[in-house]
């Protein structure tokens, strides 16, 4: 909400000072009492270096049939007499005309520089109203077709024109409105502050000044009565607690006076004509949106407030056709719709230059209905953004009178007698809100005297009854409902920053902690970082087409994603169901940046849709790892083993997998712990790598967090170190090359029994010496007993068992 400071202070006893420091101080005090200031702008003319010049010589341009070359006296300060070429046809010798000098700025920020026009030097430009951002209609005698000639203007009639030479044109025309415009951020609970008077009230309380609304008196000079000109019928009073109408006869549509135009324009509202300007002015001043209908267009002389018909089409003031629905509230006459309540009027009832009778509407509409209606027709107006915050019938009543008063003051017409009104029974009821100084002090942690609280509340125009422990808020404060709201008012004006800081002094100690899952998550993050990986943070959105890039079949479960109904774009419309695309995209990004290596990880969610779509999706937390550069399958395996070791998980099993179409079919393994699959890792399929533009030597690993966290042992039990010596034996076998090493070692371990302390593969050989289609595996076995030194016999027995087992899978001792 933009509020011109001079206008705002006019409702208080604080005097405006034309100084930035003054405006800044008010802004900062207002911010601290809760009216947050976004910006403070000094309002001054945007037109620079445009001065009055006198035409001392004029001749036709030799190379042009419509241009003139003029010698203009712009005053000694700006170089005396300069040459200006103009195409304007209304320049005569001796005329006084605004001249934009070299390096001047005119309307729209356009810069004017000296130059040549068809070979003749022009040291600037003569200006029209439009070029100065002005409207000729506000200057009697002024014309649009041509430059401004001061002699033509009525306001300067009889002045000594030569004295204006070299003077700033905006000052000469008296159009330099000087003020400071403060832009306030208005929160949704303070509909009242969406107005200059509302902010003036806040300013007055903040600065201990006096606030007063202008005295509102309507003379009602017209002979007739409003009720004879218009009738009001509210069919849907649940959505319209109050409706007031006043009528004006003998309307003279004309420009508004300068003071009103200046105030409107300072607020960023364009002045149109006196009637429209009055409705806008009252809205800005009081916060009550108003509407003016041409009475001739209210058919049957009756305004009917009712819900719209579904599918009804209605053309609003802006010339757009809008489709309505039955949840919207309309303003209608006996034939059809003439406005969308609280949003925008209709083209059919608009004020025209020949309008002679008008009906002013000032009403209260249901906030949610206006908000929904505005949304459904895609129209958010100054009016709707005020109604949707909730306004009071009293404000509507005050405002209709204010508008009538302004009509009279501006001589815009004659106001008829009386107000045609509809008031729901509960429209003007007072509300009581609990107020208990003791409770408020206990809540705020303060020791504010009850009298001080009462004073603050009374300054805010609340009626206080300390005995009954209640207050009655003023009509414009719909936000004061419970005692916490009252406490906020007290705190605001006592000063939030005057409240003494404490640290839960009335409360017992509590123990801060993390859950096991939270601790394990951090252990994993630190381990991965220790293993050389960098933690990334990625978006959980995906494009639905990544599943094509992953080469997943059409019926793959990953394609059943949670879909965002209003995404930023198709590419961000799916909640991810796999971490793989996230990782690949990040690897590809790093690759594109020519980073030689990128080792990355993240713990994050994938979102798995439930069978019942009304349930929230499962948030499955996963550790995702991705790397290229100086990485291979067994290095990645080592990284994972180191992690499992850190978490003290039981030994993992790796099972070759060809299940995932985006993974290399010969270099991918499922990871099982305790017989349960917890994830997969391996090299990415080269075609998938190409699809993502990731390097082909990209490796990824994806593991579910839940089983890692559940299985992790945080406090491992220490074991005694062995007392007796170990005996080592080597064992080399030749067998079919297709048998995985994992199977062999499994047999060795099973058969080796308790005495086999460890078994490690130290050589794997394939070659002509062991036969085609065969391989040789060599293991180092270590035997030990906790009970005594083992004899050769003991060990031979175990070795024999192991060999027997290996023979079963066709292995031969080498």
């Amino acid at each position, binding site marked *: 909400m933009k509020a011109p400071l001079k206008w705002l202070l006019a409702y208080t006893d604080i005097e405006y000072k034309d100084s930035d420091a003054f405006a800044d101080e008010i802004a900062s005090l207002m911010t601290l*009492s*809760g009216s*947050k200031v976004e910006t403070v702008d000094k309002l001054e003319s945007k037109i620079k270096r445009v001065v009055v010049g006198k035409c001392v010589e004029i001749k036709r341009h030799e190379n042009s049939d419509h241009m003139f070359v003029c010698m203009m006296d712009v005053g000694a300060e700006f170089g005396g007499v300069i040459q200006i070429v103009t195409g304007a046809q209304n320049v005569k010798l001796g005329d006084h005309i605004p001249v934009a000098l070299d390096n001047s700025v005119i309307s729209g920020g356009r810069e004017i520089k000296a130059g040549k026009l068809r070979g003749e030097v022009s040291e600037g430009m003569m200006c029209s109203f439009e070029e100065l951002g002005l409207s000729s209609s506000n200057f009697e005698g002024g014309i649009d077709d041509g430059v401004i000639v001061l002699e033509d203007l009525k306001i300067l009639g009889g002045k000594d024109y030569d004295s204006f030479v070299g003077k700033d044109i905006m000052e000469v025309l008296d159009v330099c409105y000087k003020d400071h415009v403060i832009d306030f951020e208005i*929160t*949704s*609970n*303070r509909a009242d502050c969406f107005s200059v008077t509302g902010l003036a009230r806040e300013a007055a309380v903040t600065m201990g000044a006096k606030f007063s609304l202008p005295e509102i008196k309507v003379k009602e000079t017209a002979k007739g009565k409003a009720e004879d000109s218009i009738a009001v019928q509210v069919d849907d009073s649940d959505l319209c607690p109050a409706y007031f109408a006043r009528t004006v006869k003998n309307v003279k549509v004309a420009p508004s006076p300068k003071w009103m135009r200046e105030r409107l324009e300072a607020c960023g509202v364009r002045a149109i004509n006196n009637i429209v300007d009055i409705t806008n002015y009252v809205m800005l001043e009081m916060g009550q949106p108003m509407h003016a209908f041409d009475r001739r267009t209210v058919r049957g002389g009756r305004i009917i407030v009712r819900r719209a018909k579904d599918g009804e089409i209605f053309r609003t003031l802006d010339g757009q056709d809008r489709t309505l629905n039955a949840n919207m509230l309309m303003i209608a006459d006996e034939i059809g719709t003439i406005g969308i309540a609280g949003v925008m009027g209709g083209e059919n009832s608009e004020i025209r230059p020949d309008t002679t009778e008008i009906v002013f509407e000032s009403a209260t509409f249901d*906030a949610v209905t206006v908000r*929904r209606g505005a949304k459904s027709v895609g129209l958010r107006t100054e009016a709707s*953004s005020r109604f*949707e915050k909730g306004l009071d019938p009293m404000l509507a009543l005050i405002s209709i009178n204010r508008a009538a008063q302004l009509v009279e003051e501006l001589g815009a017409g004659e106001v008829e007698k009386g107000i045609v009104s509809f008031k729901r029974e509960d429209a003007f009821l007072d509300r009581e809100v609990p107020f208990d100084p003791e409770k408020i002090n*206990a*809540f*705020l*942690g*303060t020791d504010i005297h009850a009298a001080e609280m009462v004073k603050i509340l009374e300054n805010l125009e609340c009626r206080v009854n300390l005995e009954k422990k209640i207050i009655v808020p003023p009509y414009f404060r719909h936000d004061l409902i*419970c*005692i*916490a709201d009252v*406490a*906020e008012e007290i*705190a605001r004006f006592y000063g*939030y*920053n005057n*409240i*003494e*800081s404490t*640290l*839960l002094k*009335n*409360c017992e100690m*509590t*123990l*801060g902690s*993390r859950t096991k899952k939270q601790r394990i998550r*951090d252990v994993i993050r*630190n381990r*991965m*970082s220790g*293993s*050389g990986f*960098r*933690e*990334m*943070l990625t*978006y959980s959105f995906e494009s639905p087409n990544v599943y094509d890039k992953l080469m997943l079949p059409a019926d793959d479960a990953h394609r059943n994603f*949670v879909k*965002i*109904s*209003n995404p*930023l774009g198709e590419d*961000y419309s799916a*909640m991810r169901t796999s971490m793989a695309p996230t990782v690949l995209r*990040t690897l590809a*990004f*790093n690759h594109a940046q020519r980073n030689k290596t*990128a*080792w990355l990880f993240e713990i994050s969610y994938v979102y798995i849709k439930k069978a019942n*779509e*009304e349930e929230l999706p499962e948030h499955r937390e996963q550790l995702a790892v991705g790397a290229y550069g100086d990485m291979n399958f067994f290095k990645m395996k080592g990284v994972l083993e180191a992690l499992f070791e850190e978490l003290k998980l039981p030994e993992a099993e790796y099972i070759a997998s060809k299940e995932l179409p985006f993974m290399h079919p010969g270099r991918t393994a499922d990871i099982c712990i305790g017989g349960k699959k917890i994830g997969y890792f391996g090299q990415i399929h080269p075609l998938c790598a190409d699809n993502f533009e990731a390097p082909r030597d990209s490796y990824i690993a994806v593991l579910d967090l839940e089983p890692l966290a559940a299985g992790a042992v945080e406090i491992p039990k220490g074991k005694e170190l062995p007392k007796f010596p170990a005996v080592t034996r080597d064992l080399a076998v030749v067998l079919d090359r297709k048998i995985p090493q994992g199977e062999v070692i499994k047999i060795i371990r099973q058969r080796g029994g308790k005495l086999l302390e460890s078994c490690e593969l130290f050589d794997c050989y394939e070659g002509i010496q062991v036969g085609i289609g065969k391989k040789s595996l060599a293991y180092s076995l270590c035997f030990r007993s906790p009970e005594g030194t083992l004899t050769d016999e003991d060990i031979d027995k175990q070795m024999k068992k192991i060999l027997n087992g290996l023979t079963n899978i066709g292995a031969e001792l080498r």
Partner: protein
Amino acid sequence: MIDILADIKKAFIEKITSSSSEESIESLRVDFLGKKGRITGVMKQMGQLTPEERPAFGQSANEVRTFIESKIAEKKKEIKARELEKALEKETVDVTMPATPMTEGSLHPLNKVTEEMKRLFIGMGYEIAEGPEVEYDYYNFEALNLPEGHPARDTQDTFYITDKMLLRTQTSSVQIHVMEHKKPPIRIISPGKVYRADNLDATHSPIFHQLEGLVVDKGVTMGDLKGTLEVYAKAMFGDNTKIRLRPHHFPFTEPSAEVDVTCWGCGGKGCRICKGEGWVEVLGCGMVHPDVLRRCDIDPEVYSGFAFGIGIERTALARYGVSDLRQFFENDVRFLEQF
């Protein structure tokens, strides 16, 4: 015979002084002490001596042998030491050559900042709560006093899944989950991702991170809120940091405030970071609205509480002097390795 021993000794001394390699020492040893060596040779001739002469001769011969042995050992040691010295000399490196790099990992700057906050609040008796990102409208809005049609919903452009389901726009949704399941005393923080339909630019991202705080207990005051935030501000922005509360409006707290801290760039004098204000906004907070408590079956006549929401990105930008938010989500390793 004795003279022969003296000659041997003399010859040995001559030879050993001119020997400098391990091989020549070895051949010297063979020559004098070997099975066919000179000492052995002399000893073999001992039979020619009278029994009376034999002990004296034997003793002398042994003395010469011991002398030779010790000299050889000494010389060998000397040579070894010299050779080691040579070897070490050869192994000398240029200590100014570049290091062999270790593969370094790192934690994400946003998570590092979050971790600092977690530690701080855990130390103050808080637990960490977690809640879903894909959330019911009820938890994100309705239960927080933002019913459908409430104008404040406009300030948070929301991604919807269905009419009733959305991507949470604020971690405040976790407040409701916690209060539904836990009765006071409650002291929790809840960091996590939140979503708003903002296009990505240097200062906005459709996904960002917040850290929610909630305390509900008997006798919790607004002074406690202020004191807590002061501790937070000093811990995160330095001991000299001051805070300023500005009244604001959040539908689920009353009174509500936005909190500024004295600018870390200039200490409050005014600079580019704070746009000359001297203060930088870092969080929103307030006393939990009685309606919110009531909705979670907590009696506002008995209990009160405060809540706050901290923007993680904003804090991290400040902390690490990063100017463009997008870098946090691009995950360029050259960016990540700085932290």
